[in-house]
């Protein structure tokens, strides 16, 4: 971790005037998103540095029904040593002590992951509150958060109740997320909006703002289980709300796109988007994460290409 000192967002009272004044024009958002990747290009040494940065921003994730302790151990091992040692040497970056930002698992896998990650700076995130649908009873969802924190998670990825968004019942959404935040205690809370399900960019923007008001440390796109997960227009919409919240309150909220980002090139576009729209603070793991399982593999291949001049193959890099 960079040790950047970010004052935690305490949240604020629900301000419906702010929510109601939110406007999002879909076509214009798409147009800006479409030129993010064409307005900026990062090459050579700079690209290497940016990809290394991207590694530190990954929440290396496994969220499958067939997860086992052995599988999670393997993932943790990868998080600790994300890059092949000869590449680390060739790039002369051993003292960066590169790791991924976090490991992200279901509650059941926390104790295994916690013992694997002991002694590292790698965060341990648990998806919670009846992930992915979030339709379990409220008191169980609160209990689930508390159990996970007890089991060693220092980051909790909660899912919001989508029906509150459809009903535009911002009070209910706010109360729910605020309760989760209280249950999290010291653990940082990422609020998953399930952007693929709440569908419109206007909903995404409003839900983002409500979650930040309720004390979100991060706002996160999706569960990875939806038909559409993180996209650039959705991301642009969410980070513009982060900017708005920062301008109005002075607090910096983090952003986590999840699902669908699997290529190094896409990661670079995301990074330049964060840099352009929010600034360099949002290029650090305190304020930006990729929720991804296969992105790391592609970054490794690109880095090997930069080092050797030859295009690489997946089997040359350890799986997680």
């Amino acid at each position: 971790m960079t040790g950047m000192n970010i004052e935690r967002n305490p949240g604020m009272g629900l301000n419906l005037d702010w929510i109601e004044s939110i406007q999002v024009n879909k076509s214009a958002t798409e147009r800006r998103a479409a030129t993010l990747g064409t307005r900026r290009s990062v090459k050579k040494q700079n690209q290497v540095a940016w990809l290394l940065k991207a590694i530190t921003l990954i929440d290396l994730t496994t969220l499958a029904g067939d997860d086992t302790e052995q599988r999670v151990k393997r993932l943790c091992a990868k998080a600790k040593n994300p890059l092949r040692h000869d590449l680390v040497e060739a790039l002369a970056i051993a003292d960066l002590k590169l790791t991924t930002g976090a490991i992200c698992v279901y509650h059941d896998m926390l104790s295994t992951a916690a013992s694997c990650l002991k002694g590292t700076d790698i965060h341990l995130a648990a998806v919670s509150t009846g992930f992915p649908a979030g339709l379990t009873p409220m008191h169980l969802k609160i209990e689930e958060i508390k159990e996970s924190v007890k089991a060693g998670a220092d980051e909790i990825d909660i899912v919001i109740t989508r029906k509150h968004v459809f009903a535009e019942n911002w009070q209910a959404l706010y109360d729910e997320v605020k309760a989760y935040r209280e249950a999290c205690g010291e653990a940082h809370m990422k609020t998953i909006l399930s952007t693929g399900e709440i569908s419109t960019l206007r909903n995404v923007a409003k839900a983002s703002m409500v979650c930040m008001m309720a004390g979100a440390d991060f706002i996160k796109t999706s569960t990875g289980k939806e038909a559409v997960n993180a996209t650039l227009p959705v991301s642009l919409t969410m980070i513009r709300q982060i900017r708005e919240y920062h301008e109005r309150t002075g607090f910096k909220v983090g952003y986590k796109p999840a699902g669908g980002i699997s290529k190094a090139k896409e990661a670079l576009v995301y990074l330049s988007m964060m840099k352009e729209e929010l600034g360099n603070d949002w290029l650090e793991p305190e304020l930006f994460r990729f929720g991804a399982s296969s992105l790391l593999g592609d970054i490794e291949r690109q880095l090997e290409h930069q080092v050797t001049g030859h295009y690489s193959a997946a089997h040359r890099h350890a799986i997680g």
Partner: protein
Amino acid sequence: MNIKDIFHTMDYGKAPESAELALEWLASHNNTFGHHINGSWVKGKEHFASNNPATGQELAQVAQADDKIVQKAVNAANKALPDWQALSGHQRGQYLYAIARLIQKNSRLFAVLETLDNGKPIRESRDIDVPLAVRHFYHHAGWAQLLDTEFPDHQAIGVVGQIIPWNFPLLMLAWKIAPALATGNTVVIKPAEFTSLTALLFAEICEQAGLPKGVLNVVTGDGRTGQHIVNHPEIKKIAFTGSTAVGRWIRQATAGSGKKLSLELGGKSAFIVCADADLDAAVEGVVDAIWFNQGQVCCAGSRLLVQEAVADRFHDKLISRMNKLRVGDPLDKSIDMGAIIDPRQQQKIATLVQAGVDAGASLNQSSVELPENGCFYPPTLLTDVSPSDQVVQDEIFGPVLVSMTFRTPSEAVALANNSRYGLAASIWSENINLAMHLAPLVQAGVVWINCTNQFDAAAGFGGVKESGFGREGGKEGLFEYLKNKPGKSPAKVTAKSTKSKPTSVNLNGLDKTPKMYIGGKQTRPDGGYSYAINDTAGDLICHVGLGNRKDVRNAVEAAAGSTNWSGMSGFQRQQVMYFMAENLSYREEEFAARLMAHGHSKKAADAEVQAAIERLSYYAAWCDKYDGQVHSVPMRGVAMAMHEPIGVIGIQCPDEAPLLSFVSLLAPAMAMGNRVVMTASEHFPLPALDFYQVLNTSDVPAGTVNIISGEQAELCKPLAGHMNVDAIWYFGEDSETVERESATNLKRSWTVTEVRDWHNNGQGSEFLRQASQVKNIWTPYGE
């Protein structure tokens, strides 16, 4: 910096596009070019340097074409004309298709060469200019194919001269050449002297495409070469994109020459941000409006109008966005703004901005570091300005935005229209009612709702007011390169001298002095003079008012102030015009008598009145049927080509068929919603002067139609030169005066010197087209 440093700074570094291929191409020509005429290179003289504005370094030597070279090019174009026109539309389309393919194949070369020569960011030449140029050739390959079936009554004009600017050298070339060739014309084109290189590469590409020799001729040089083209008698049409000053000169220089003209000129386009807009989206819109191509864009949204309620927030957002823009090496792929075209232009921008600051404007300039060498100017926002400031009125043609606020939608419209220009406008609101309310009210040829600087070959582009006339792109753009197939011209009608003293008085039922009709009232001539109207035997019939410039002024004032007619629905106008036809038919005998007084036989007089009644009905029918189009542009949304009235049209009627010609010109202008100032036939004015009765009894709002009598030669100057007249139609011999005077405010002019057969060739879509203008409204949608 090493990797570890960059890991912490997260800088972009450099990402330069290679200039190698473009430089090789220049070297293969020894960095010296002649002209490309008749399919091959012709040696040039008086070479001058074409520089890279980002470095100041010379790229190549380009030649200055003199009159002999232009003559050579025109000869080649003339010679190529018959064979080119003899090809089928399909065959001509194949050539355009081949050109599109070849530009695509060489797209990177074109993009890099354009960026080297012009200084625009490689992203723009690569992602916008070149793909749009390709798109224009594909689109017009299709029009070539469809020409015979879609335009059966039209034919090519002949040799066309095209003069293009330096801000989009290849794209403007494509906009000009593609429709000209598709419609069967041959071309002499002159690129701007700062940016000739992609035009010369294009000429080579056409050689490769096997385009027949002489169909396209490229001559290079400065304004002097342009003058040779504009003044050349064998060039039948001039298409120009550039400054309003030069456009005005071209209008004057070609006056009376019979040349067809299209002018795409300057602008000071409004960028309207309503309180309910997506402000972040609108900020990006501003970036695409005024910080695109360094603001050197004729349709740049350079006048920001933002609603008071959100003005401070919007300015804050804009300034922080502005500070993120990267200015520098145009070949760098991470650059937002490149170089200004030339040190003189940079100086002009700096001078104008300083004048604005001296006048009290607050200067907000991007903190971005500019390169030490080369011609750069930072993104700039001027606030605290007002409509009376020069920076608000004048086109700066640089990355400088001026910002004002408005309180209500109607104030936004008033501010937006408070300009000599009328090229484009951009409207930002999430309220469809508001956006669609504003779009028709803003005087502009193109309106972008929640977007800006959208272009496509399928949608017309062009302005109103002093931004010029004519459209490029879309079906509307093709008419600029077509003319009607000739109809039969009857003999000119001549009148006996009107100077004779009255010898005998034959009132023939007339017991009064017919008056003029201004603002819904019968009026006497301002000067208090009248002139004699004689019958065919030379005997005096009566005296009519001798109108002068003050009568013109009063009539225009009345027309300009009477906006009711233009606001009525097509259906409402239709009711009135049918009523006019009905009321004319009640007065058949009266009007026939007037015509007989002018020497018509009873039969001819009856036939003309009957034809006039039918013509009124014909255009009454059109009132609610001359629909616009929805263009098929590559966007999730609609580009609506709306037919709008032009405003106030001055119409000078001919002597032939004095009632029918009057009605044939009045009716289409009215049908499309214009207000008119008609000057009656000079020698046979009685039916026109009596027409007020029809107007008075038909519920035509006062001021919609104003009728003056007098000498055409006397009236044409003040009418054609009036700044508040939006178009002039002239049927007479002195088209030169009319066209020259029309240059004052660059109004559209329709001058016809041939005598027309008003019975058989006096109605049709040509009249409706002349009576309307196309506004393209782009509206992307999606939720």
